[in-house]
């Protein structure tokens, strides 16, 4: 007879000395690992809960300004430099790693422009009218200001090389497109967003909305998308080529949205609002994925997303600039390979089971200050009432007389060329 009985040599399965690592032979046969889906579900539930446990986004508060922080500026190449300007004319240069002020200057109320590291400005340009916004070209030595009209300046000249007007008495902000570097967008006080090409002599076109836009930000990855922060508590992402309908309407704030900035990946953006919160939205979703608030943070005037995609900086009314994590539950610093593997696995599990009701409920849960929570509920009720009344009117009138208007089309009044 031929016989073989299973006999394992313990030397192959037990470690030799206590200084070795343990041996773990693997067999991926599915019959040895039953209940794959329920066990993964349990792990995904744990991962989601732990994410909420570790979601502590607030990092630091930069104290020092003596009036509300009005604007922030990122350094194009240095991650640790930040410039902030306050309402009383003080401009501070911060070193974020040590969180101290590197430079300090008192000046008239003017907006920030990146110049030399000295205390005294390199150049002072006196303009005929008040300036409300400023932005620098990506590569050339050209910058644009807006006030009563949009002016394009050269750094060496003391008068604008080109001026754009379109019958609006004031513009609130101007931005250069980081990809198509000749394009500009500005927000006018007649509830419009005007697009310009620097090479032409007249503006390109403008879109007029129901309420005024405060700020505009271009998507750094997609040349033709820009997001506008509007007074009617929403943000609108437009495709520059089709201004008649926004690509996306982002609704979640309960008060006017004051500032918006894109992440360097172009997939998300952060918005600062007059209700004392900042929200992070994915670029293609209608609702926010994250909301940051503190009892001490009052109306947030300006917000910036750091160039390494990790931090969000917000400047608010109570003279503080706050540094937050872009991913609230992320562990900062260098992760060991096992930590990285575990984080990646948990991330994939959360993605896989994100639509299951229990997991979705936990992942979506955010604490909101009471007034914002109640305000949001009230807005929801109002919206539902309007919707119900409209559908009732439609139901009881001749079919076709009350047309269905999509949500996106409701907010644009007209496009003017």
């Amino acid at each position, binding site marked *: *007879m031929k016989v*073989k009985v*299973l006999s394992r040599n313990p030397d192959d399965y037990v470690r030799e000395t206590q200084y070795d690592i*343990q041996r773990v032979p693997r067999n991926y*046969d599915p019959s040895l690992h*039953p*209940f794959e889906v*329920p066990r993964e*579900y349990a792990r995904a539930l744990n991962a989601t809960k732990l994410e909420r446990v570790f979601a502590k986004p607030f990092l630091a508060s930069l104290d020092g300004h003596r009036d509300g922080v009005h604007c922030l500026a990122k350094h194009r190449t240095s991650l640790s430099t930040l410039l902030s300007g306050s309402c009383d004319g003080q401009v501070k240069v911060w070193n974020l790693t040590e969180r101290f002020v590197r430079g300090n200057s008192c000046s008239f109320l003017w907006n920030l422009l990146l110049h030399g590291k000295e205390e005294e400005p390199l150049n002072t340009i006196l303009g005929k009218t008040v300036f409300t916004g400023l932005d620098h070209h990506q590569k050339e030595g050209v910058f644009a200001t807006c006030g009563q009209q949009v002016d394009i300046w050269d750094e060496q000249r003391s008068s604008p090389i080109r001026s754009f007007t379109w019958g609006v008495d004031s513009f609130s902000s101007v931005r250069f497109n980081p990809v198509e570097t000749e394009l500009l967008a500005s927000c006018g006080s007649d509830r419009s967003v005007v697009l310009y090409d620097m090479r032409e002599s007249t503006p390109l076109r403008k879109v007029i909305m129901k309420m005024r836009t405060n700020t505009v930000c271009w998507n750094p990855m997609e040349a033709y998308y820009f997001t506008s922060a509007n007074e009617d508590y929403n943000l609108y992402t437009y495709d520059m080529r089709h201004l008649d309908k926004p690509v996306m309407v982002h609704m979640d704030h309960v008060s006017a949205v004051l500032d918006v900035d894109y992440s360097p990946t172009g997939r998300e953006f952060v918005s600062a609002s007059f209700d004392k919160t900042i929200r992070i939205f994915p670029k293609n979703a209608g609702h926010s994925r994250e909301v940051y608030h503190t009892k001490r943070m009052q109306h947030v005037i300006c917000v910036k997303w750091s160039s390494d995609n990790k931090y969000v900086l917000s400047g608010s009314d109570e003279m503080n600039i706050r540094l937050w994590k872009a991913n609230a539950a992320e562990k900062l610093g260098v992760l060991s390979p096992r930590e990285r593997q575990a984080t990646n696995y948990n991330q994939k599990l959360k993605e896989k089971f994100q639509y299951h009701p229990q997991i979705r409920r936990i992942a979506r849960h955010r604490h909101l200050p009471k007034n914002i929570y109640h305000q949001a509920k009230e807005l929801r009720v109002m919206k539902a009432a309007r919707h119900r009344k409209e559908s009732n009117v439609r139901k009881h009138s001749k079919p076709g007389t009350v047309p269905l208007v999509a949500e996106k089309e409701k907010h644009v009044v007209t496009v003017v060329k």
Partner: protein
Amino acid sequence: DFDSLNERHTLPSSEKRTFDHWPTQEDPFPGPAPIPVNRLQKFKRKEKMLNKPRGRKVRLRDMITRSEEASKMAQKQAARFDLLLPEDAGFLEGDEGEDTCTISQQDIADAVDITSGTKYFNLKLSQFGPYHVDYSKTGRHLLLGGRRGHVACIDWPSKELMCEINVMESVNDVKWLHSEDMFAVAQKKWLYIYDSNGIELHCIRKFNDVLRMTFLPYHFLLATASATSFLQYLDVSVGKEVAAFSTKTGRLDVMCQNPHNAIVHLGHHNGTVTLWSPNQKEALVKMLCHQGGVRSVAVDKTGTYMVTSGMDKKLKVYDIRAFKPFKSYFLPAGASCLSLSQRGLLSAATGDVVQVYRDVWSTPVNKPYMAHRTRGAVWGLHFCPFEDVLGIGHGDGFTSILVPGAGEPNFDGLDANPYRSTKQRQEWEVKALLEKIQPELISLNPTDLGEVDQVSFKQRHQERVEALGFDPLEKEKFVPKYKKKGRSSAGGIERRKKQVAHEDQRDEIRKTVEDKMKMEKEQKEREKKKAALFVNKSALDRFKK
């Protein structure tokens, strides 16, 4: 000399070879190594989706395609890793003319190496009654419970006695809990839980008159069947009774679990086998299996086949996924105990004879693979998880016999590792508790969570249609694009509209044809069945009930 050396370096231009790339040879085995199909099949979870959402749902379609590709890659990687598994399964082949069932255990023990030979041993414990047997999940620890109260736990490869107590009461059943730290003993009145040092940890009075127990390892649930026809579930991690059902079917002394979906199978005296989950008060399924009472039930580890033996001396194999009878064998003496090994060997015991059968469901079996006679009447059978060993508890004590080819040769170190250290066991225990599956998820199909919830979707869609007054998912009417430069004539527009309409029509026709074919197929099968039943028609058929 030097000049000729120089000359040799410069070849005439016609013979100059370019050394941009080495002379190529045809690769005799181009591409990656092929994987045998059956090995690839082993790791396949789900078939590819045939009708992916078409049209505007580009993102969803892309996601599905990408996840299918990732799944395929994972399948291939796992199949390639299979080559590296260290051990091979055991086997026993008789010489020409020799029957494997005539080979005695002593011969096998003499023919194999010493360590394997020591796995055949006998414990003579005739004082305390017939013994119940249980092996722990890793297969390293053995629990013996004698009817008259003797309970012992042994690390059987090293023959080290962990604990030995006499509970001073009759013992109905013994079972290991999740690890070798705790075990449960169903004593005369109540359920007791002991530590592996023999210390009584709990006396659970809610569980009374327990006759049989089974432990669901991934849910940390101990399911008990009592003499008062109660089926109760105890969560051993939290210590709470999860569910208790009064089955109203009499004394429950036949019980087993389906390791694939954690469903409990109970066998009754009227020949039925019922399937239970802790979420439903009634049995999920009731199957009539035997003409007499059911004596024993066993389910294989993949949850495909159920083997039952009854008072009618029959051994039946059922396909448990489709609930259909598969095979039926006649045993001259019936089988009082059944046990299935990890590799599909079935052991059946009657009186003091234990027979092991191989491939009960694939090839028709007419003789056993191995046989063994014990000294007392067999009371309990259990295959050891990762070894080629069968443990028999009988009236005269305990015997462990060698059954080559019974155990799974390659274990997974992260799941059940017989060579784990204390630290590894502690880490494993913590991870297992974190991944504990809630009892609400126990159902006949364990992959229910991965399916799309069509019912809720339909309900929600209906509510939305009522709220909006129209169907948002309805197909939009096709409006052909207005072409410039005079290419958009009335005839052209009509032609394009007709094209789209024809395609839609074709889709619909295809659908109806498919449905029709399906119905026809089903009808044919039904007629075939009917014809098979009414083969021998006779005038006396009208008197049949």
